[in-house]
């Protein structure tokens, strides 16, 4: 029985980190949906979110409830500046060039963080409390439970926004057909900016949650790679896919990490990635692209 309980606890922890993966994947999906750019710097923006929170909460001594929105705003600002300054200039270039630009951006952000805060890992000031949460008999870390709840809430809000908000509808229209969206009077460049701003803000928020669980370091951008697996498995342009695949990858990581050893985590997730690319390149819920000559 205790084996089963342990399994349940591991699975719950997996779902918790899976929710964070979903949230990060959402940032990928948002940006890809609107602008067809795979932003590999999402992991680094997530890291910036953590460091912004550190700067605001520990450096300036703001209360966490002010520091969290400030960190999210900082991430969103980076997204807006990058979109306007770099990505907008790259319109019409091959997707690979834009992809490489985001790789370069990630490197710049890591370098800046190392310049300003050094390479040592830091812990974020605690704002969630530490009292454990029990679901039935199963123990769940409080931070993971809160992260799960927040991530679930944010994703629900996003789904609602896509459905009912004008901006969300404009974003979906742009994703479906750019030219048609233009001719309906939608401000497509504005949608691009919006997607980058919200996407990077989301990533920064995920960074605060992730950092408060495991601490922050300049290398935490690697989390973006796991999120990349999530979006490929779920489908690059599918919010629901990010949710389902995030939870699934989180579970797989928790199980392999516990029962096989930490070093197997990445191998399993990337094994799934390659398998997925071979079988269903457009992901579980993604749109199949048809290529014509």
């Amino acid at each position: 029985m205790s084996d089963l309980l342990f399994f349940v606890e591991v699975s719950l922890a997996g779902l918790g980190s899976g929710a964070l993966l979903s949230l990060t994947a959402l940032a990928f999906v948002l940006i890809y949906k609107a602008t067809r750019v795979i932003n590999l710097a999402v992991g680094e923006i997530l890291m910036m979110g953590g460091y912004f929170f550190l700067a605001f909460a520990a450096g300036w001594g703001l209360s966490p409830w002010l520091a969290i929105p400030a960190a999210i705003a900082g991430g969103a600002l980076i997204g807006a500046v990058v979109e306007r300054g770099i990505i907008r200039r790259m319109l019409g270039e091959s997707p690979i060039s834009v992809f490489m630009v985001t790789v370069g951006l990630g490197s710049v952000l890591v370098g800046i963080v190392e310049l300003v805060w050094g390479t040592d890992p830091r812990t974020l000031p605690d704002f969630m409390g530490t009292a454990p949460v029990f679901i039935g008999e199963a123990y769940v870390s409080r931070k993971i439970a809160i992260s799960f709840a927040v991530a679930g809430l944010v994703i629900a809000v996003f789904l609602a926004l896509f459905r009912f908000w004008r901006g969300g509808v404009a974003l979906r229209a742009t994703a479906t057909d750019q030219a048609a969206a233009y001719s309906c009077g939608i401000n497509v460049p504005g949608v691009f900016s919006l997607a980058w701003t919200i996407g990077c803000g989301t990533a920064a928020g995920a960074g605060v949650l992730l950092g408060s669980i495991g601490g922050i370091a300049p290398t935490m951008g690697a989390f973006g790679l796991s999120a990349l697996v999530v979006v490929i498995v779920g489908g690059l342009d599918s919010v629901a896919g990010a949710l389902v695949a995030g939870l699934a990858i989180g579970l797989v990581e928790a199980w392999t990490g516990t029962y096989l050893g930490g070093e197997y985590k990445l191998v399993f997730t990337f094994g799934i990635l390659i398998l997925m690319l071979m079988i269903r390149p457009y992901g579980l819920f993604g749109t199949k692209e048809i290529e014509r000559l």
Partner: protein
Amino acid sequence: MRIATANETYLADEALIRTRTQWAWTAVLAAGLAAAPFALNNYWLYLACLVAINVASATGLNILTGYTGLVSLGQGAFMAVGAYTVAWLDRNVGAPFLVNLFAGGLMAAAVGILVGLPSLRVKGLYLAIATIGASIILQFVFLNWTSVTGGSRGMNVAPASLFGTPLTTYFQLYFVLVPIAALMVLGAANLFRTRIGRAFIAIRDRDISAEVLGIPLLRYKLLSFAVSSFYAGVAGGMWAYFFRAVGPESFTIVESIFYLAAVIVGGMGSILGGIIGATFMTLVPEVLRFGVEAISPYVDNAGTLLSPVRTVVFGALIILFLVFEPQGLAEIVQRVRRFFHLWPFRK
């Protein structure tokens, strides 16, 4: 466009070196490369060897990414395969080092074909992501297949020996590594005068059209992967003999990004671009080191700034080149050349 180069055959038109002036400059370059080690000190010889290794690997990646249009972030992992193969053969078989290098290349080519298999289904960014996945899995193998790779401790490599002389100094290594790299570059340049090379280019320009024209896509894409990883494998083998140790940290995803960045900065789909790009990207960190040393009397702990500044500059170079000079350094060189062809008749 050069004048007075009318040719009567296609063969002459496709020749790598077409005019007397070009022959003269090539001779000057060869003589310079041969004489350089006598003029350079040990530090610059070290850099020259490193540049030769990086040029070989970047040229390989250029064949795959620049000429066939298949983006790969696995070049570092392929180099690691070559390096480990060389280290293992060196310890357990003891074959001559040229044979080891060749075997390292073949091994990497075999792995490259395996990694290239997803290119059957996916291309573009998806392929780039698949190669990231493959290199992470390879990294895992290097770290955990302890009996062959030495696990996290890695392996030491005995110095290469030629005609019974162990090659230990950078001076000796220069005379081995640079000619090998030069041969590999020459091979790549000649590849694109053949049917296979032209097929690669056709696939890059529009793969569906290429298939319609009768180019078997899968076979040629895998061939491109094989050639490119062969280059990476040989370069990795040279790397192993140069640093005399191989470990799992030697070739990370950062290495792969480095080579892709070198190809982008130099100029995709240009042999010259691969050479200049690899040279440039190898030397920039050293220039930064001089810069940091220059400011160290005025700034506290300037030494700790070096690594983050390198990271920032590395990323900024990728961004700036892609935004402002997408054709890379090779295009700048071409502009300068065009200017001097017409000078002084046109400014």
